[in-house]
């Protein structure tokens, strides 16, 4: 009896191992989910900004800022899983959008174009695209600082 049971249980146990490993391998990882959600939020932000570009309104703008903030959060969660993308460019863009709406308003088309380049999950790991995006956000930051200085001067 025991001689028959042991091989059967062994086969079942090995099968269970295979099934669990299969599901683990096919389940989207936190990194994949984070990347997917970051891209989703970027596209939401673009849609809201396009609404503002067509006709400036506070609702769309506040919504765009919230989406940009969510992008920062998802990218931050990627960093937790040792992802190479830095949160800095996204944080700078969010900061400029949240605190200097007039700067964004003057550069809306460029902002939409910069965000539109990050249109797939792979773009987040593409050094060229991310390098261009970082350069854009630094430019926005400089413009925001200039706007702040002009405000103080006037």
């Amino acid at each position, binding site marked *: 009896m025991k001689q028959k049971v042991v091989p059967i249980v062994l086969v079942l146990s090995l099968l269970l191992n295979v099934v669990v490993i299969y599901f683990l391998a096919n389940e989207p990882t936190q990194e994949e989910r984070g990347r997917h959600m970051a891209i989703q939020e970027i596209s939401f932000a673009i849609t809201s900004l396009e609404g503002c570009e067509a006709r400036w309104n506070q609702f769309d703008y506040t919504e765009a800022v*919230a989406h940009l*903030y969510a992008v920062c959060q998802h990218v931050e969660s990627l960093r937790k899983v040792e992802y190479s993308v830095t949160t800095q460019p996204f944080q700078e863009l969010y900061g400029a959008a949240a605190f200097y709406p007039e700067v964004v308003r003057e550069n809306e088309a460029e902002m939409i174009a910069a965000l539109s380049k990050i249109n797939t999950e792979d773009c987040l790991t593409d050094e060229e695209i991310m390098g261009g995006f970082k350069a854009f956000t630094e430019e926005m930051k400089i413009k925001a600082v200039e706007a702040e200085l002009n405000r103080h001067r006037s």
Partner: protein
Amino acid sequence: MKKKFLPILLAVSLLANLALAVMVVRADREVQEYHASVTLREMGFAASFLEKIQAGEDPEHAEALFDSATSFVYGAYQASYRILKDEFSPWEGLLFDLWNRMLYYPEAVEANLEELILAMSLEETSQLYDETRIQQMEHALQSIMETIAQMQEGE
């Protein structure tokens, strides 16, 4: 030889099953705890900004403070969405509703700040699963809805 080998293999396989189960549960718990803590952090940020508005601090920038709180609520909603993966988390729906109301009816939200701040001020991630805290937030949202209805009647 075969008789000895099979039970050993079986024991190893069962151990592997156990190890896999522990690994899955631990990884899942760690991820859930991370997103729950982000939800709590974002709600805390939003509550502290709303507190500043309530206290009348920096009235010149009250609108900017409210907009920032709106972003934080959206951040909390996004994190709560990821707590339970594809399963429904009550906070996901509640925070999304709150974000919408902050976006479209800021006056109604401001009229219910005290109740809202209280509902949003959670200290531990375990409170996210506390039925009383969930009901507290539902009630705050209900109050906001009533204010919106009153405002619309007035118009």
